[in-house]
């Protein structure tokens, strides 16, 4: 190799490697204005859960635009949102969180669709004394000493299970089997589901676990549907649900299917992927956003989605930003350790109910006690940071559309 | 099974008895028995497909025969692993040149000496003084050998860059560092220029005078004639005829075997 080639390669690598160093010195391009309030989010844009990230980003960006458009917070300061890709990887999530905390100096690290990503980042964020908000279900996240800095905008795994059992009761299924993915979010649902089934006089005949990213799920589907249960509780993510639904259809199984919104809806992507014939008759449940409220309808409209779309994760992202700005305004500071104490103040009852963030900001400035209800949930938290009052919204796919069945809690 | 044997004779260095090796339906060796005697340069000739290279592989443990035995100074080595042969004093070169390409010429030779303590995992880290002393001693021997074959000036070059003939010399030099009693040469003349062939003849004669025995598989009859005291002719996997070179080339059976006259 001649010298010029060596110089080229070195230049390319050195240039890329110098980027992080450059940011230490070259403030202007990336830094917020001195007055901006920095917030951060770690969301999945690539990897196995990459399909859930974009909508969450869209929702978060919308809130930031609204808030900044109405004059910002803390005396006219603008909110600046930094978003990093979690790559559906715990290690990447740690690097991403570190970057947000140390380079962008954020007060909030939110997002976190996946439990492993959240669990890995938790010690990093707590060590920096910043707030972590997440949209994942694994119980472990709010266990131990959370220093009052963690808020979960999602139903815990142990709440999903009993909800599933209640759906079974509703559709009259007594003998059921479970078909579930090996995934921290899902695994923790199984035992509570079994316990609740026993309570209501039902019986779980078998629990069939499968690994993600398999080429085929035929064997597992046959095992779960073989004993001809009244219904099968199918617990997947989107990609495997698509395969499994097709297997069920091909196998001609007649047992009812109760699944989760993460797999059987995913904001419409499931129906898109399998078509109405395969999806016909599948029930699915997800923690319900306040479907009937006008603010939720507004949220759906602002997201550019058709009326009646049930957003699960985007709403959580929306709420995370709303809660943060409201708590900051209430505490009159951007410092995480201080405004975290205001979160329950602005979110929990008693107080005047409000769901529009701009209106809520004004009310706080006027000194009123508010009870913020978000686009993803009512946003009421207990001392551990878990959401309380989680009800679940049940839908049935009929004729190519999601039709509402009811709410269980 | 057992052919005429000269085992028990102190002269027998390497002997194969009734060796057979089949690959699928093809019998590469079919009851072959012959002896390489100490102190001699013995030729192994025969038409293509006679089984010469297979025999060489059997003699050095690279191939296990289906039947028969291999005896080294009377000791049964039929089942010995290939790496044992170097320790037993048998070295070989290869027909298609197989230099260790990413090693330098010098390293090729440093590799060869037996019983290097530095090849142990723990010793490589903690026994440095000992194996460094061995390296230095081996280096002197390597230098001497490289000078003898005229490759010393190329010592630090990667051996992959040598010419075909140079690689053959390297192969031979490497084999010599094993300080063997017997060297088996597999077509050393193949693809080698005439001046280099003369060089090889000179070298082999010198070494033979120093007490090294040779087995030589060759097609180049001139080379065989110049070097070999004794020649075995193989055909169709077994020994056809043995004798001096002069006798053997006149034997009608040998001529027929080479010309491929149908049986």
């Amino acid at each position, binding site marked *: 190799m001649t010298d010029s080639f060596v110089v080229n390669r070195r230049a390319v690598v050195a240039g890329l490697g110098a980027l992080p160093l450059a940011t230490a010195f070259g403030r202007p391009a990336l830094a917020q204005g001195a007055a901006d309030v920095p917030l951060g989010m770690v969301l999945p844009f690539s990897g196995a859960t990459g399909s859930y990230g974009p909508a969450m980003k869209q929702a978060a960006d919308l809130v930031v635009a609204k808030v900044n458009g109405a004059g910002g917070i803390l005396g006219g300061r603008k909110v600046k949102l930094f978003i990093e890709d979690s790559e559906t990887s715990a290690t990447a999530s740690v690097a991403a969180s570190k970057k947000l905390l140390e380079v962008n100096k954020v007060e909030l690290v939110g997002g976190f669709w996946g439990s492993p990503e959240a669990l890995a980042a938790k010690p990093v964020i707590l060590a920096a004394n910043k707030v972590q908000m997440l949209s994942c279900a694994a119980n*472990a996240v709010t266990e131990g000493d959370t220093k009052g800095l963690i808020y979960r905008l999602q139903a815990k795994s142990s709440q999903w299970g009993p909800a599933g059992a209640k759906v079974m009761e509703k559709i009259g299924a007594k003998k059921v089997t479970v078909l579930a993915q090996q995934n921290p979010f899902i695994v923790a649902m199984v035992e509570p589901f079994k316990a609740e089934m026993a309570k209501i006089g039902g019986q779980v005949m078998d629990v069939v676990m499968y690994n993600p990213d398999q080429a085929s799920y035929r064997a597992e589907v046959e095992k779960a549907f073989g004993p001809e249960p009244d219904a099968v509780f199918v617990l997947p993510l989107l990609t495997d649900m698509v395969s499994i639904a097709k297997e069920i259809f091909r196998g001609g199984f007649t047992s009812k299917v109760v699944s989760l919104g993460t797999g059987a809806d995913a904001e419409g992507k499931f129906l898109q992927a399998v078509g109405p014939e395969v999806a016909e008759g599948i029930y699915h449940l997800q923690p319900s956003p306040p479907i009937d409220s006008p603010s939720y309808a507004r949220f759906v409209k602002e997201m550019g989605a058709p009326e009646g779309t049930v957003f699960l994760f985007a709403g959580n992202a929306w709420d995370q930003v709303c809660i943060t700005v409201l708590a900051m305004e209430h505490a009159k500071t951007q410092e995480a350790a201080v405004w975290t104490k205001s979160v329950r103040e602005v979110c929990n009852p008693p107080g005047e109910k409000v769901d529009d963030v701009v209106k809520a900001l004004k009310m706080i400035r006027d000194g009123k006690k508010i009870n913020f209800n978000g686009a993803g949930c009512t946003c009421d938290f207990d001392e551990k940071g878990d959401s309380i009052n989680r009800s679940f919204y049940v839908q049935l796919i009929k004729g190519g559309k999601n039709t509402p069945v009811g709410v269980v809690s | 099974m057992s052919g005429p044997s000269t085992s028990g004779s102190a002269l027998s260095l390497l002997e194969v008895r009734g060796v057979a090796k089949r690959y699928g339906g093809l019998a590469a060796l079919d009851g072959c028995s012959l002896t390489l005697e100490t102190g001699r340069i013995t030729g192994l000739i025969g038409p293509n497909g006679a089984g010469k290279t297979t025999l060489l592989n059997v003699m050095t443990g690279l191939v296990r025969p289906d039947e028969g035995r291999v005896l080294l100074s009377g000791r049964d080595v039929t089942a010995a692993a290939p790496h044992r042969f170097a320790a037993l004093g048998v070295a070989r070169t290869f027909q298609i040149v197989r230099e*260790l390409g990413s090693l330098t010429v010098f390293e090729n030779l440093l590799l060869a000496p037996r019983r290097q303590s530095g090849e142990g995992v723990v010793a490589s880290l903690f026994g440095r003084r000992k194996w460094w002393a061995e390296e230095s001693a081996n280096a002197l021997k390597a230098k001497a050998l490289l000078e003898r074959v005229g490759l010393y000036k190329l010592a630090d070059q990667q051996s992959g860059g040598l010419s075909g003939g140079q690689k053959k010399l390297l192969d031979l030099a490497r084999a010599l560092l094993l300080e063997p009693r017997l060297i088996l040469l597999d077509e050393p003349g193949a693809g080698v220029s005439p001046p280099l062939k003369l060089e090889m003849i000179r070298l082999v004669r010198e070494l033979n005078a120093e007490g090294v025995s040779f087995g030589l598989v060759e097609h180049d009859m001139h080379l065989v004639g110049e070097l070999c005291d004794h020649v075995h002719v193989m055909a169709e996997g077994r020994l056809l005829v043995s004798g001096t070179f002069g006798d053997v080339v006149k034997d009608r059976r040998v001529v027929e075997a080479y010309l491929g006259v149908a049986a």
Partner: protein
Amino acid sequence: MIAYLITITILVCVAALVGLALNLQWGLAGLVNFGVVGFVAIGAYAAALLAPEIGWLPAMAVSAALSAAFSAGLALLAIRLEENYLAIVTIGFGEVVRLVILNEPWLTNGALGIADIPRPFAALGDAVGGDAVFLVFAVALVALAFVTLEGMARSPFGRALRAIRDDATVTSALGKNVFALRVRAFAVGGAVMGIAGALHAYYLTYIDPGQFTPIVTAYAFMAVIAGGRGSNVGLLVGAGSIMALLEGTRFLKDFITVIDGVQLSALRLGLIGVGIVLLLILRPQGLAPEPRRRTSDVLPDRTTRS
């Protein structure tokens, strides 16, 4: 910013350890190990499970020993077979390890992973603040591994491995016990991979099966190829370069506001691929050559040639 760079350097240290190990197994000895991630995972889980019971140092020793044992076992099974079979067997091994840790919750807590793994020098680390103490620990481990493996590479052991890599038949004809040498190389590499896994577990303090996917194996090969097979110095630069590419592109979205964040994420991973390809085109032999014994090293009368 410094704290972020410390994090990245620690992650490079983990990758460097894996790379150094693979450089011994594949770079020097030519053994194709496509199951690298499995050995790292064994080390990580052994450390995570045992450190709370017996302390971080004994646990790390067990990680090394266990990975070495599995490596040796696998090598004993597969190395007698033709070259390609080792690759296949190791792929299978890597997958089996991942499936076992995912599906055996009684042992590994399955998909939920293991949290609250104790860190070495935790008290000192808290006193000093940040990850600085851990950084020193990680760098020290890498330095130790480097000195050890480089020492082996420059010894007759290393030379014998390189010879086996080039041509096992010839090397065996020269009297080297090819089988034994290969098993030893594989086992030593395995031990270092186990230590890398333990270091990873100690840093993240939380491990789950999702962290041990084939991409880890791919990164290790990338670092070895970029650095130049057999060269440990090149490998360290290679591992650093890969990480610089990975993390450096993260900053692109802060500078480039024209492209949407979602698209930029996809673009970033594509850029990393392009970076690797460029490296291979511009410098296919890698960053540095493997160590060689020169005549001038051993023979006093030779002057060093340039």
